[in-house]
């Protein structure tokens, strides 16, 4: 599990420092703090960013919104973001609202509020709302990552790293090459959210990352994965083999 990379766009050093402190305390990773619009763009494109915290007003101008508008235009470049603002000025909000998905946080905020806002931003951005706070799910799945809520903070796991997923009731065991952990999500939900080409159902309880398959032993109904994990293969899910390019 990796920490979430946060880009902070905030012109006031005290505020950015306080924010950094809170985020670092909750195991977030700060990739940079931008003081203005140009810095923000540079930092955004140079670093892997998961979430952006944007102050609406940079040097008295609503450049924060301009930044959000800029990254919104580029397809697939956009990331979840949270606006910070100290005024509830309607006009500013009407403009900011157009950068969807729109979430904001009023200053001053406490630790819990910023964490909540970040979670909300991720949920809204990946259109999987009411996940982190409900009692039956704690994971949002994007194209590249799983965002998992651990205690107060978010963590992420690259889908690339996952070897296989073992389903048990409402829980899923995620096994990567390095670690193994449990997330709270139903099988139906996870199978709809994962790319079916890449994550293949091999058994009632198993979803396997196709990239990690080393060997399929049909006689024993076994799949050998990287790291020598042996996974059961059941007859009813064998069809996927036909689609694979088999080297003879």
């Amino acid at each position, binding site marked *: 599990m990796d920490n979430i990379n946060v880009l902070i766009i905030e012109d006031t050093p005290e505020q950015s420092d306080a924010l950094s402190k809170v985020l670092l305390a909750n195991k977030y990773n700060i990739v940079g703090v931008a003081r203005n619009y140009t810095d923000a763009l540079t930092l955004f494109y140079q670093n892997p960013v998961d979430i952006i915290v944007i102050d609406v007003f940079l040097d008295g101008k609503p450049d924060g919104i301009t930044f959000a508008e800029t990254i919104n235009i580029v397809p697939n470049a956009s990331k979840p973001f949270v606006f910070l603002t100290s005024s*509830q*000025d*309607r006009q500013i*909000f009407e403009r900011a*609202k157009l950068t969807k998905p729109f979430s904001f946080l*009023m200053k001053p905020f*406490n*630790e*819990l*509020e910023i964490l*909540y806002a970040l979670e909300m931003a991720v949920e809204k951005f990946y259109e999987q*709302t*009411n996940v982190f*706070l*409900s*009692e039956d799910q704690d994971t949002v799945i994007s194209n590249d990552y799983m965002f998992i809520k651990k205690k107060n903070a978010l963590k992420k796991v690259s889908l690339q790293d996952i070897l296989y997923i073992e389903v048990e009731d409402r829980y899923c065991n995620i096994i990567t090459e390095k670690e193994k952990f449990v997330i709270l999500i139903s099988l139906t939900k996870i199978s709809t959210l994962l790319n079916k080409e890449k994550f293949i159902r091999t058994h009632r309880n198993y979803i396997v990352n196709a990239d990690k398959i080393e060997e399929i032993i049909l006689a024993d109904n076994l799949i050998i994965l990287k790291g020598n994990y042996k996974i059961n293969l059941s007859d009813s899910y064998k069809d996927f083999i036909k689609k694979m390019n088999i080297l003879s």
Partner: protein
Amino acid sequence: MNLKLKYYFFCFFLIAPFFLFSQSEKTNLFEKKILQQKLIEFKGELNFIKSQSYYLKKDWDSTLIYSMKQLSISNNRKLADYCHYFRGESFFNKKLYKEAKKEFFLVSDSFELLPFKNFTLGASFLELKEFDNALYYFKLAEKQYVKSNNTVGLANAYNGIGTTYIFLKQFEKAENYLLKTLRINQETQNNDKICISYMNLANLYYEQYKDNLAIFYFKKSYELSKKANNITTKQTASKNMAVVEENRGNFKEALTYRKESEQWKDSLNNQNKIWAVADFEKKYAVAQKQKQITVLKIESKLKDTQRNGLFYSVLALLLLLIGGVYVYAQKVKSSKIILTQKNKLDELNATKDQLFSIVSHDLRSSVNALKTSNAKLTTSLETKNYNELDQLLHQNSAIANGAYSLLDNLLHWALLQTKQLYFHKDSVHLYSIVQQIEYNYKPLLLDKGITFENAVSKNSFIFVDLDSLKIVLRNLLDNAIKFSDENGEIKIYTTETNTNFCQLVIQDNGLGMSQDTINELLEDNELLAKKSNSEIIGTGLGLQLCKQMIKKNRGTLAIESELNKGTKMILSFPKTEQNG
């Protein structure tokens, strides 16, 4: 002899139309009565009515026109009979005997005035010198008159028959009928008719060369004609006398009679002239009347336009009046509204002023407290009394917090009042929000030793504006802490309801309040609750703000409280709709 004969014919020519004339002139009562009955019967037939009235007025041309019209539009047998009868009579009187004959032939046998028709038809034949036919129809008329007991008609019929016999040279029969006529006429004492009868008799005898008898009757008729009204009768009688005297060779007397005859003729002409003049006068009068009518018409038209003008002007005035009344009513109404609005505004202004004074007072005391506290801090620092330092700093932060929340409320109040507050409803996780609010009050709770419990269901998602919810919760929690004793308990929890609303309860076991205070708090527009405990009760702004925010979020607020036992603030908000 030749000369004589000529005179006879002359006389007969005079006689024939003569007796017929008298017949038509005195249209007998029976005929008139029947016609009037018909008038009622055929009320709807305008043309018939017209032709009938013209017939009675002896305006033959008009009668012809309207009877023709009536014939062309109606197929009624009875009506047709009357019309043909009218036409026949009219033609006869206009001396168009052949036409008259044709019309009479068209009259059916069921016609009610059959004897009249037959008689006139006979007369027409007589005029056309078809004596046999004349005799036939006269006799037919005679029979029918006898049947209907019409003596006047009978006399006429006898007269006709007698005259016809004269022409047929059957003098005995002629004499017989003419005497009968004379008798009837004498009975009815109609001088004109008696006179004519005498004349006819005289003519009869003259024709038979019974000159003495003839002269006797001529004379008798002449004597009688002096009493008669009809000038034509008088003229004919005197003329007859003149012819007779001339034939006898008494030229002198003949001359006198002739003169008399001429005189009557002149007077007849005069009369005709007078009639013509009268007619002309009548026409003139009619024209005059017509003129008057036109003038009157124009006048009435003028009056009409005047009346219309008056009517419209009255209407316009009325409209103006109504409009005026309406405008006045509107004005009164609007002024009333303005007055109430003014009163309300005054009231609001007063409350606002009050609010200002309280807020500024509170702020002033807060800042003052900070000032004194800071002074103490400085002295503490100087004396290096670090224990006191910590306590003072805590106190300072508490004061700052209080002042901040007051200002925050004030700001939101202002935003709400000016409608500048951004309001965006979203699905909100209630538990997290309560947790976030609690986070800010942790030092305060700890300070007062209050135990706080967040028992909100973790599955509660409500659909509200996050920031206004936070303001509400902050204020209510602030109040709960403010009104709680040391070591009190505050609990926030949700209760399960099956509706679309989520109920959130903020419960404390603090001071509580009376029902009156609750009512005051919940009352609308009561900006500032009366201060019964001025030490700890604030501006009332917080709760007012809460009420408005809750309302804006389509939620409700209820308060349950008991003095010295605690208060329950019960909020309800719409749940997020679960769609999939």
